[in-house]
């Protein structure tokens, strides 16, 4: 997805109000962005606290700033700078975190981003989690305040049809309840369920932005009496499932069944690929397929 992100940034580079920072990451990914942005691209070196402060300063002077790093280095280390320097002043800085969830796989737990959405939600940051490569062009257009953009891998099968971008959209029809997937897990769900019988598979919704305000009316209408399955590569605390369930309580909506699969950290105490970790959490292709075909 970072290639698609880079292409989207190159497309947008003619806007002189955009500025791009990296903290020395993005080799073999950001070179074209660097070339397109010219002197509006700065490698700020390995110093994330400084990156956020400098980004805030630039934003205060009228720039819309994209600040790019490996996700946990970006939201966790300089948390206070995000809070004080960007969020208190509501500055238009987009924190671009590459490697959402377990995407950095074998690189180990320091590189995984499992609590990013919760941490950024707590600060009121707008959270974007594109599901498919094509989404990038749309999501980078609307940066008006503190934003966190979580990049992963587009996992849908080649050739599958995806409707035009919306923060929430149904990407696969079905009659066996609802499956709500955060970001790229929607692609995993499509790959797992697209060839299943219509009656046995759920309708799959791709969620690309957190926050109650972006949930379409149609979704709320379909929840009552539906079997609801929520999948996210994020810990339970403060993620999509918890945020949604709070909305259900407020709205007096109750699904017939509420199943929440989420990141569990490292239950075996061992480490591996993104697929390995997804499997341990029941978030992989096979687990999703079995959920509907073996336990309809």
């Amino acid at each position, binding site marked *: 997805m970072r290639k698609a992100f880079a292409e989207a940034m190159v497309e947008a580079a003619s806007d002189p109000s955009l*500025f791009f920072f990296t903290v020395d990451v993005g080799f073999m990914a950001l070179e074209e962005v660097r070339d397109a942005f010219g*002197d*509006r691209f*700065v490698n*700020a*070196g390995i*110093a994330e*606290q*400084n990156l*956020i*402060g*400098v*980004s*805030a*300063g*630039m*934003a*205060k*002077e*009228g*720039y819309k700033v994209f600040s790019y790093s490996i996700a946990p280095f970006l939201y966790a280390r300089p948390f*206070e*700078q995000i809070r*004080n*320097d960007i969020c*208190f*002043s509501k500055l238009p800085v987009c924190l671009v975190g590459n490697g959402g969830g377990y995407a950095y796989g074998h690189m180990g737990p320091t590189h995984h981003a499992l609590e990013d959405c919760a941490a950024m939600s707590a600060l009121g940051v707008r959270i974007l989690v594109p599901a498919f490569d094509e989404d990038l062009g749309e999501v980078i257009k609307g940066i008006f305040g503190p934003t966190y953009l979580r990049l992963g891998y587009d996992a849908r099968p080649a050739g599958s049809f995806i409707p035009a971008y919306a923060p929430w959209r149904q990407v696969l029809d079905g009659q066996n309840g609802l499956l709500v997937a955060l970001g790229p897990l929607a692609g995993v769900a499509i790959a797992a369920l697209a060839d299943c019988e219509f009656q046995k598979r759920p309708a799959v919704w791709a969620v690309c932005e957190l926050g109650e305000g972006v949930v379409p009316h149609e979704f709320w209408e379909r929840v009552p009496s539906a079997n609801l399955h929520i999948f996210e590569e994020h810990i339970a605390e403060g993620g999509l499932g918890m945020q949604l369930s709070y909305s259900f309580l407020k709205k007096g909506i109750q699904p017939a069944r509420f199943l929440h699969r989420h990141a569990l950290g490292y239950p075996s105490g061992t480490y591996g690929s993104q697929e390995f970790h997804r499997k341990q959490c029941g978030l992989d292709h096979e687990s999703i397929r079995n959920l509907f075909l073996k336990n309809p």
Partner: protein
Amino acid sequence: MEKKTFIESKIFLLKMHANANAGHIGGNLSCFDSIMVLFHHHLAIHDRFVLSKGHSAGAFYIALWSLGKISDSEIETFCKDDTKLPGHPSGTGIPELMFPTGSLGHGPSLSAGLALAAKKQKNHRKVYCLCSDGEWQEGSCWEALIFAVHQKLDNLTILIDQNKLQGFGTTDEVISCCDLQTRLSSFGAKVLTCDGHDHAAILRALECKTDLPKIILLNTVKGKGTLFENKLESHYLPLTPKNLEFSMAQTMRTQVP
């Protein structure tokens, strides 16, 4: 700046703090001369100022008050309910208060961002940032300095209020930066030192031209002119009526250097 303006402002600062029963008067008094000189004699209209040592908000507010940018009635609300002037700047409500500060180590990076923006926008405005000396125990300050030097931000001036006292001891006792001037210089900045209570010396340092990011080490006295001058108590404790009276009398006798 007339002597009358300076003395009147300093007395207003003392009264404002006493009235609010607010602490941190020591650090406000150590940097008050430099803030007043900066705002009255040096800052151009489009220049930027970031108060990194947010606990000296009072001195900043009074400097703005002395220029008519904050009203008497607003000063009355300092550190009280429904105020725009809390004990550390909120970054909202008054344009000159650009960022919320109070957690140390943020100002240098924010200022570097402002300075870089000016460069990229081919604007001649300059950026000034006031830090405490203890603040340079924060690693983020050094990150910002490396960045500023690398980006050749000669439009950035960082003033460091070197009163040598922090929350629980002297800066040397708590965790020494040893010879701060040498360390700062070794990072590639132009470092000047002056008496932080000598207005003419401060102005000379501000006006000194260089093609490097500039740092001015201001040798100052914490709680200057109070009964707890150069004592730890001036960091946290409010002014008692007796201390206020003493400090105001001392201020009235001030010869503006």
